[in-house]
């Protein structure tokens, strides 16, 4: 694994850890009585987003942020596996597919925030940005097929 790839892998793992921290905080706030550190009222309104029907998965009691914990944990795990020398074309493909799926979900969540709720949750935006950065890092490490590498 090239030095540049190792650096990118470490950054992806770092994004995963940061994402797990943010998602865990939002999940903790969902289940506890702790007040959310975020502005309320106006366009930036975490409370409005996190108390909406979209803040839980499919009408269940499970907060959407719990899915964030799973996604970031898996993303960090894939990066660590590559750093640990288990880099393979298949692992790279899985990581690309995983980060692309995460980005697609983020686009959907942003649509809900802007179009359906008319409010943006700052903490959610931090998590969304981490997903976007993860995807950008993953696609920049893709080696072109002409040079013998694979995705």
């Amino acid at each position, binding site marked *: 694994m090239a030095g540049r790839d190792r650096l990118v892998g470490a950054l992806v793992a770092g994004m995963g850890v940061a994402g797990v921290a943010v998602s865990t905080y939002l999940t903790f*706030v*969902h*289940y*506890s*009585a702790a007040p*959310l550190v975020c502005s*309320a*009222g*106006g366009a930036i*309104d975490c*409370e*409005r987003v*996190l*108390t*909406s*029907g979209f803040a839980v998965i499919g009408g269940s009691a499970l907060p959407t942020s719990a899915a964030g914990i799973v996604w970031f944990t898996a993303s960090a795990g894939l990066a660590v596996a590559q750093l640990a020398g288990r880099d393979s074309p298949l692992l790279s493909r899985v990581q690309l597919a995983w980060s692309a799926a995460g*980005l697609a979900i983020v*686009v959907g969540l*942003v*649509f809900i925030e*802007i*179009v*359906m*709720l*008319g409010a943006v949750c700052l903490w959610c935006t931090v998590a969304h940005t981490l997903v*976007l950065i993860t*995807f*950008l890092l993953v*696609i*920049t*490490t*893709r*080696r*072109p*097929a*002409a*040079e013998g590498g694979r995705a």
Partner: protein
Amino acid sequence: MARKRKGARPAAKTQQKARPQESHARVKRPLRKPVRGTPAWVPALGTVGAIAILVVVFLAIRYFNTPAAPAPANSTQTAQVLSTITSLPPTELEQVGAGSSNNRITPITGTALTGPGGKPLLFYYGAEYCPFCAAERWALIIALSRFGSFSGLTATTSSSSDVYANTRTFTFHGATYSSQYVEFQAVETTDRNQKALETPTAAQLALVNRYDSAGSIPFVDFGNRYAFNGATYLPDSLQGLTWDQIAADLQNPSSPQAQGILGSANLITAAICKLSADQPAAVCSGPAVRSIEAHL
């Protein structure tokens, strides 16, 4: 050195033998120059650009789809609608039963909650912008009016920019309630534009923190014996309807509005009957209310 190799092939062959690795590398070298792949920053920049365009499109959709605020109801219209919905025949409420409502009322434990008058206290926590609160207020007003009477209720609508935009309703802000059976306190935290309106007391906030840890509104506490958060029916049946139309629909027990609102009102009535020791009997002894009470 290159010239030397060109001019003296045998010597070069000798060198090849002496350095087999270099020879192998030469054999493996591609016949043509490798095609330069797309620079790594191109797809990254493309992704960022696509995301930026999507966000702009979302903002445009939002801008062009936000309905204008409806005209406010005048006081005469409000009084007529309130008179209609608080004098619905008990037989109709019996006929609806739980209707299409979703029983979210659950038992809770804690010190019995009483109001300043010593009677069991029903505490409501919501906001005027909230469409689910807008829906629930119809049911709360109908249920509570069976045990006492409101004054000062005014018509309003939920936010124009939230889901179920502009749901017609009434606000508890500025209203008072009197009953010989229960007491009622309401906190509307913000107006329909999400500007701060009322601040809960420390005791009220403690109730919210304890029994509504998810922070969902509306939150209703029945004397610390029962509570629910979220709406007990969806506001979709109220979409696009005026106060008058909703009041008219409530007189038809099979209408979706009656099934939702009156069904929820019966749920709330049953929970209040639990607090009031089934008083008044005229309200609490009906088969529908008794049936719901048995499941609380």
